[in-house]
């Protein structure tokens, strides 16, 4: 009883103990805030990764794809139909995106080339397995800083996903083509040919100044055709060499980027190949010097044309086509936004030679599955893997999105764990503070300890006074810390805007993170563990001073001045 009474009295009367309470409190609050924000970001990231990858993926090991997608889809329904909600066959292949940069220094045309993943999809099917609608800029309303809608989306939300250009994109395309023609007239050699939608890779007048245009063949270029010939013996020597963008070769642009089957009457008619292009591929963030806000500057706008190069099936042989950008893809995951180019699956199959001439059916490289309940993912993967006759392991690789993204997810997991350890060290530091302060209090209370022992208190009892004291410090500190931390998490966006206002700098720039608000998620177990950990540390820190107090000799303690 005296233990409780004395430790509660010490707690109330020692102001120095307040210092240890505050240090425990701050440690606990920091841990809770950081953990909640990290968990929030992690959930958000998982959500986005998950939605872009789809629940379960069946991938053909060959980039040439697997035949007969309809039968494969039927197999999926046969094997795991009760768990599956939707299946979307797609073609995924690596390639290169090429676009013309706005003319700046010279009259030379400048091109940007980016490595990309080209994904051939049927938009509505794709949207059913992994939603892309919400990531297409043209389908989103334009908002201002406060998140208020200032312009409606270019398409009404009921309009199904398609490869149609929006009205504003059509308008832009007209102007853009017009300007291109004028540029050609002003600086280019031949005038624009009405038969071609617009002239690509025409030799600009200044190209003659380029070193490799002096008539001496570039030694590097020289070897290229030989290499190609080695790889594809039956390749026609007359087909374009890989240095296809070299304007001195004198090839007509129409040889390079053919779009057969389309009779373009309207010179402004877009190409049959259309694209959703990742935002970071064709745009870059730039700080507006006037407002101080980061804005995305687009190099290519919907309605303009870009070029895609990839490989055909079989031995590597280039395949390329020109396509019109329909919309910009922005998911907020920079990895996807700087890598993904979506195009119509039929177009990609045609260009890559994946169409079966007999049936007209195209091969696919990937089946994306959406499950009714993601918890069944492991089971579905297991079932599909065991259906060896339908999905032989040597042809197909089957995994859940988590398995596919395991390295990233694990890295984030480990990061969170390490951060937790580091933050717990803060509480450990607070623990050492408690230790020092308690040592002081024990020295200060030496005579009282002597009195208690003279009155018959056991060493054990004296020890438990200080252990109880430590525990109550821990309880109070972590209690206040939990409340403070939860309040901070709850009002984090208000706090963020207050700090932004005070410092005049945006702490959380939503153009960088693509979140309007800071995402948070409070896990009750995390809070419990943090609080318990803090209390345990407080008790552990008081063990040493408590032992010292217990070992004091009563007479020496009584005589202590």
């Amino acid at each position, binding site marked *: 009883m005296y233990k409780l*009474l004395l430790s509660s009295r010490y707690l109330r009367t020692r102001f120095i103990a307040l210092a240890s309470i505050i240090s425990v409190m701050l440690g606990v609050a920091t841990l809770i805030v950081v953990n909640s924000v990290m968990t929030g970001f992690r959930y958000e990231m998982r959500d986005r990764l998950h939605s872009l990858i789809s629940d379960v993926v069946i991938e053909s090991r060959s980039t040439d794809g697997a035949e007969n997608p309809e039968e494969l889809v039927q197999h999926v329904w046969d094997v795991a139909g009760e768990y599956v909600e939707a299946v979307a066959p797609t073609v995924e292949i690596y390639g290169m995106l090429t676009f013309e940069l706005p003319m700046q220094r010279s009259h030379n045309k400048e091109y940007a080339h980016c490595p990309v993943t080209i994904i051939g999809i049927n938009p509505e099917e794709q949207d059913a397995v992994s939603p892309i609608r919400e990531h297409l800029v043209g389908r989103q309303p334009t908002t201002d800083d406060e998140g208020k809608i200032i312009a409606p989306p270019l398409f009404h939300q009921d309009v199904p996903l398609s490869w149609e250009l929006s009205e504003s994109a059509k308008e832009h395309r007209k102007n853009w083509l017009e300007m291109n023609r004028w540029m050609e007239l002003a600086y280019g050699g031949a005038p624009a040919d009405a038969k071609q939608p617009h002239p690509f890779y025409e030799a600009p007048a200044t190209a003659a100044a380029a070193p490799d245009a002096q008539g001496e063949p570039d030694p590097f270029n020289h070897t290229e055709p030989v290499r190609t010939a080695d790889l594809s013996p039956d390749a026609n020597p007359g087909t374009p060499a890989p240095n296809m963008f070299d304007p001195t070769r004198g090839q007509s642009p129409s040889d390079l980027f053919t779009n057969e089957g389309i009779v373009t009457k309207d010179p402004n008619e877009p190409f049959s190949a259309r694209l959703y292009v990742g935002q970071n591929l064709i745009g870059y963030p730039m700080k507006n010097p006037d407002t101080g806000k980061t804005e995305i500057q687009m190099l290519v706008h919907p309605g303009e044309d870009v070029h895609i190069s990839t490989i055909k099936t079989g031995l590597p042989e280039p395949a390329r086509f020109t396509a019109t950008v329909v919309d910009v893809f922005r998911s907020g995951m920079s990895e996807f936004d700087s890598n993904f180019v979506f195009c119509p699956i039929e177009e990609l199959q045609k260009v890559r030679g994946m169409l079966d001439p007999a049936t007209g059916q195209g091969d696919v490289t990937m089946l994306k599955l959406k499950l009714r309940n993601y918890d069944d993912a492991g089971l579905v993967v297991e079932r599909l893997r065991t259906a060896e006759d339908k999905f032989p392991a040597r042809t197909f690789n089957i995994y859940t999105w988590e398995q596919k993204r395991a390295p990233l997810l694990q890295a984030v997991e480990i990061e969170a764990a390490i951060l937790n350890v580091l933050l717990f060290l803060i509480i450990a530091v607070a623990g050492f503070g408690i230790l020092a302060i308690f040592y002081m209090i024990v020295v200060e209370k030496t005579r009282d300890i002597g009195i208690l022992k003279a009155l018959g208190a056991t060493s054990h009892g004296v020890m438990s006074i200080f252990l109880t004291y430590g525990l109550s410090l821990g309880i109070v500190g972590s209690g206040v810390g939990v409340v403070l931390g939860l309040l901070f998490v709850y009002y984090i966006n208000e706090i963020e805007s207050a700090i932004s206002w005070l410092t005049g700098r945006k702490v959380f720039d939503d153009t960088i993170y693509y979140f309007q608000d800071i995402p948070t998620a409070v896990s009750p177990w995390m809070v419990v563990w943090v609080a318990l950990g803090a209390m345990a540390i407080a008790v552990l820190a008081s063990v040493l001073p408590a032992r010292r107090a217990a070992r004091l000799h009563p007479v020496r303690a009584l005589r202590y001045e």
Partner: protein
Amino acid sequence: MSKHRLQPHLSAVALTKSYTKGEIKVPVLRGVDVAVEKGEFVSIVGQSGCGKSTMMHVLGLLDSPDLGEVRLDGERIDDLPLATRDELRNHVFGFVFQFYHLLPELTLLENVLTPMMIRHSAWDYFKRRGEFRETACEIIARVGLSHRLKHRPSEMSGGEMQRAAIARALISKPEVLLADEPTGNLDASTGGEIMDLLKSLNADEGLTIIMVTHDGAIADQAQRLVRLSEGRIQSLEEAA
């Protein structure tokens, strides 16, 4: 007076105790024999450093002798296990010190109740707290401090603090009260009041009191004097 009873209540046999200061061994008690009967009021007098306080600490089991024994009702008690000695201190002995030694964080009532809190577990104490409170109030009234129940030691005078310390020593109903210079820090009249209180406790309730003092006038108020000098008994005498 039954001085010649075979078995004294509390007795010390050939107590020897020395402290080591650095490398030098300083002998404090060099074989002291003392026997105290039930209901006696004995004072131990001597110069500073003659070992009288040590003597009292050894008798009260706060310290253990190097040689010799302490006996309570004929049983040796100085070599008992630590926990048993703690319990004996709580049950058998009451201590009063020169500097009162009250706990500054507690009120007078709480200070007086401390021995009961130490004796009983939290739960027992909680169940019987009314009963303990009543006893404590009675004893506080006995030492004349009823008006100071809720006061902290820092709000009381020296005499009041010493009365409080006596009340705390009494609540555990001790068989022996050990008082170490109970008046040493008080002026003559307050000291006199404390002595009157001790004497009346001895006379009315038959409490055995062993008092340590260097003040001959105070010591003379006891029934019997033990004079210590350099760790040895100089003389045993009846009080005047």
